[in-house]
């Protein structure tokens, strides 16, 4: 399997707190890779290192390499702004821009990157890809605050898609949503897999089992086990993985 992202001995933390310890793993192209593990195990910090958002927190530090198509994104000649366009992110809590209309929320990214014409087209395409077009096409000028939580999250996905990323990171995208909205987001992720490389953080193991091709189990900042989802859930090699997925802790 061809890899899109190659993580090599990644260490990260905040000040004197060492959160991620020597993580090395390869994330395959056009597949869904799930990161599971108990709260505080470093899952979020890990994905936030993949688009250089982690370093925005005061006191945060990163060591090691993250190769995106073979090029280390932490090299000094790499512009983090460019990396963040190529590696999009959907956050835990839906976070549409409340002061902008639904349309402007999606047009914001393309405008930042210099697109002036054809914004209507991009907005429609992005909303269609995020399976939200039919629900909002008559209210594009409205505030996103009027949408439900699930719709807001799909709006955030559409917003991420509008800048044409290659990778999309999902940081517990369904933890604030009800089961119906969760199912919609999961279907959507499975569709997006055709064209994007997807990494999803979740502490819902059923979710990982449903949508992920590969699953990585993190514990206390270490990568304990990584492999095909079926193997991780049915035949874990590490005792700690087995304990976690059978609900003995976490």
């Amino acid at each position, binding site marked *: 399997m061809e890899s899109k992202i190659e993580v090599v001995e990644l260490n990260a933390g905040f000040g004197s707190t060492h959160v991620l310890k020597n993580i090395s793993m390869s994330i395959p192209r056009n597949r869904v890779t799930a990161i599971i593990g108990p709260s505080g195990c470093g899952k979020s910090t890990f994905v936030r290192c993949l688009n250089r958002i982690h370093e925005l927190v005061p006191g945060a530090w990163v060591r090691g390499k993250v190769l995106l198509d073979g090029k280390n994104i932490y090299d000094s000649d790499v512009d983090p702004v460019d990396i963040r366009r190529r590696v999009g992110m959907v*956050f835990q809590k839906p976070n549409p821009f409340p*002061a902008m209309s639904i349309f402007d929320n999606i047009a914001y990214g393309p405008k930042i990157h210099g697109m002036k014409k054809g914004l209507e087209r991009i907005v429609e395409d992005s909303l269609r890809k995020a399976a939200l077009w039919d629900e909002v096409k008559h209210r594009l000028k409205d505030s996103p605050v009027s949408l439900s939580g699930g719709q807001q999250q799909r709006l955030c996905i559409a917003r991420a898609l509008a800048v044409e990323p290659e990778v999309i990171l999902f940081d517990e995208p369904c933890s604030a949503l009800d089961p119906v909205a969760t199912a919609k987001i999961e279907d959507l992720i499975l569709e997006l897999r055709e064209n994007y490389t997807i990494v999803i953080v979740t502490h819902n193991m059923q979710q990982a089992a449903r949508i992920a091709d590969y699953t990585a189990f993190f514990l206390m900042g270490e990568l304990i086990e990584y492999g095909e989802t079926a193997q991780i859930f049915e035949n874990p090699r590490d005792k700690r993985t087995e304990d976690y997925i059978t609900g003995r802790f976490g």
Partner: protein
Amino acid sequence: MQARKLKDRLFTAFCIGSTLLALIPLGSMLYTIFVKGFSVISIDFLTKLPAPAGEPGGGFGNAIQGSFIVVGIASLIGIPLGIAAGMYLAEFPGSRVSRVVSFTADVLTGVPSIITGIFAYLVVVLKFGGFSALAGGVALATMMIPFIVRTTEEAMKLVPRELREASLALGAPRWRTTLEVVLSTARFGIITGVLLTIARIAGETAPLLFTAFSNRFWFDGVMQPVATLPVMIYTYAISPFEDWHAQAWGGALVLVAMILALNIGVKLAAGRRW
């Protein structure tokens, strides 16, 4: 049990009583201004120039016009500077410059307004050789800036971190994130703060006495002295003429009504989130 309830009642009554007591001066002042000022208000009073001493009639039209102009000049200078400094404080907290700006804003807030007037006198009046609307505007802008700095800083700090991250995660540079996401999200708070600051400084008299000075004619350019409501009220109130005293009450009513309208308007609009 009974004693506890009794204490509770007594204390509640004490609090309500204190509140009412504190409201008496406000109510009495508004009542007096309304009663004494209302009979003076007329179309002529609002639109005409003051009459020469001894002649009846005339109005405060030029002072109303002048107040708008001086407050307008103050806003043109004070709002952009205040918002820019507030943005800096919110975006770069803890930097050395930030601490200095923050401390300066605190000190400026406490500077007596007459001192602000002296500052504008030194910087503008002496430099350009005369009293002027510009000098008055500079004096009021100096008073506005610290309030706008604080209000902008607070409003921007209330914008959740997730929104900044959402913008940065789209590959937006930091300056665009600040201007287009953070500032636009905080705009209600900033506009409210700016309007309340305008209401606060519109009635300032001391800084205008030796900056904008006064004038018995219409506005004649930013480098000329200009009449303003507070200074006009002051001049008329300390004059020896009965009819001027009455007109001072009329001016007071106009000023208080404008400031109250601005305050109440902001409260209503903020309640409806614009």
